[in-house]
């Protein structure tokens, strides 16, 4: 980093934008944003305002209110697509990132992956980017192959090249940021290598979009998915950015209303993307809320948010190492990882850690983080995880460290 590093965030002012920090019993230290982020007031207000003033169903009504709802929904789509540098025509709203990956595995995968083909994922995937591919491979007689995670928690592009050279790989699907290790994967290079081998590239951006400046066009993946609630937006809305030409060739995932061009008694023709993939009434108020969320993040600036979380992540790693018997997983270099840290403490189960620090008002997660194959690779049943967001500061980390010292003391009695 150079001297042009953006100014750190005014965390006090940012915390004041999030009502939960003044409405929870104190102390309230929230270090579980990788599970779900807290919501700024502007998001709550945008949803409330939409429902109070602009509520009608979309894509059908001819009266003025219905047109206003249509405009609000499509404006939200355009704003959300612009936030990640994606084409709104290829920006599909789903329920969450999990559904977005299922959409790809069903609508693209069932048509394109056959017996003897291979799907290549990595050992650090969340179950959302693993089980849909496992099911596809079982159904089609295809092979599910894994890129290995090394001791630093990173993937090897050399191994990717070797796997691609073995042939038959139809899709490479990896996380942009690991929800357990925090590793930032080189997804643009991975997509390029996949394309050179004739495979498509899928990126699970659920942990990346809230933390990093993401330019979907520059990454060049065929599909990039993420979810609203981790990006300070509402639950119930996920985003699938797909290459428009690819979406145009695909059959729908779910069928029903809104995704059709014409329905006869025996057959139906499909609507254009993105609508072909949005069966039934879409998450309208959620889209409006998510648009407010991304505008809020843009107002602060994703470059500044990344700089803040990288600096705070470095502080978190340094302070965790002060705790006796504590092991941190993932890359040692804060520049190579997002603002989260998974750890274990000798002789104390992660669930006991999370419950004890929870009693001190510090919210962290413990468990397998929906990544059981990665837990097996790390040789642990579970880890504890502290994850950061734009509203965290050094004092939050200090509170965690104090609570961890107390936990160690309780168990050493």
């Amino acid at each position, binding site marked *: 980093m150079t001297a042009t590093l953006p100014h750190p965030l005014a965390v006090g002012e940012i915390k004041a934008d999030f009502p939960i920090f003044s409405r929870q019993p104190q102390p309230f230290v929230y270090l579980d944003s990788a599970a779900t982020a807290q919501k700024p007031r502007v998001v709550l207000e945008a949803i409330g305002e939409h429902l109070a003033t602009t509520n009608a169903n979309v894509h059908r009504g001819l009266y003025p209110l219905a047109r206003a709802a249509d405009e609000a929904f499509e404006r939200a789509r355009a704003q959300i697509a612009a936030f990640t540098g994606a084409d709104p025509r290829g920006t599909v709203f789903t329920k969450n990132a999990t559904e977005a990956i299922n959409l790809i595995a069903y609508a693209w995968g069932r048509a394109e992956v056959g017996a003897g083909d291979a799907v290549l994922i990595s050992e650090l995937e969340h179950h959302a980017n693993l089980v849909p591919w496992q099911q596809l491979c079982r159904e089609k007689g295809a092979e599910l192959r894994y890129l290995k995670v090394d001791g630093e928690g990173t993937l090897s592009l050399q191994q990717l090249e070797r796997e691609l050279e073995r042939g038959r790989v139809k899709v490479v699907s990896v996380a942009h940021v690991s929800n357990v290790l925090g590793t930032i994967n080189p997804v643009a290079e991975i997509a390029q290598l996949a394309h050179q081998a004739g495979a498509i590239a899928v990126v699970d951006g659920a942990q990346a979009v809230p933390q990093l400046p993401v330019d979907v066009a520059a990454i060049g993946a065929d599909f990039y998915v993420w979810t609203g609630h981790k990006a300070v937006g509402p639950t119930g809305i996920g985003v699938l950015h797909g290459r428009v030409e690819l979406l145009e060739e695909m059959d729908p995932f779910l069928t029903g209303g809104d995704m059709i061009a014409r329905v006869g008694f025996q057959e139906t023709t499909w609507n254009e993307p993105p609508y072909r993939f949005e069966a039934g009434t879409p998450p309208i108020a959620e889209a409006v809320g998510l648009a407010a969320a991304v505008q809020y993040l843009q107002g602060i600036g994703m470059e500044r948010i990344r700089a803040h979380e990288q600096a705070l992540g470095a502080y978190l790693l340094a302070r965790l190492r002060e705790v006796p018997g504590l092991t941190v997983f993932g890359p040692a270099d804060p520049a190579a990882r997002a603002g989260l840290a998974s750890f274990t403490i000798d002789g*104390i*189960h*992660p*669930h*006991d850690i999370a*419950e*004890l620090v*929870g*009693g001190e008002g510090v919210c962290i997660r413990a*468990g*397998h983080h929906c990544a059981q194959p990665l*837990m097996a690779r790390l040789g642990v*049943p*579970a880890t504890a995880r502290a994850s950061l967001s734009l509203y965290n500061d050094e004092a939050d980390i200090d509170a965690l460290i104090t609570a961890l010292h*107390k936990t160690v003391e*309780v*168990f050493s*009695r």
Partner: protein
Amino acid sequence: MSSEQLYREHILDHYKHPRNFGELHPHDLEAFEHNPLCGDELGVHIRVADGRIADLRFHGNGCAISQAAASIASEELIGMKLEEAAALSAEWMIELLGIPISPARRKCALLALKTVRGAITGDASWPNGQGEI
């Protein structure tokens, strides 16, 4: 009650120094159960004499609640009639632990009893889902 009290001495004592822990060879009954939520794993070996649990050993690893529950339960289970052990309720186990158990930790607390039930009856599931969250 604070969560620190939850980890009060007798729980931590049983966690660090589990009673009747290890394997038992030969044994008449065995079962292995896990709690996918925490990753707790627990196996049991039971030796039977005259329709009673003559001896019993738990083995496995997991959180303090699951492992302490096994240790505490083992002291009550040895000498108990098989049908009596198989009929023990979730509340029996929670009362024996003597600490408040949050819904999220209920599966940890009941893992030992579930394993014993599985070893005796071949069915570890609970009537009316009382072992579930």
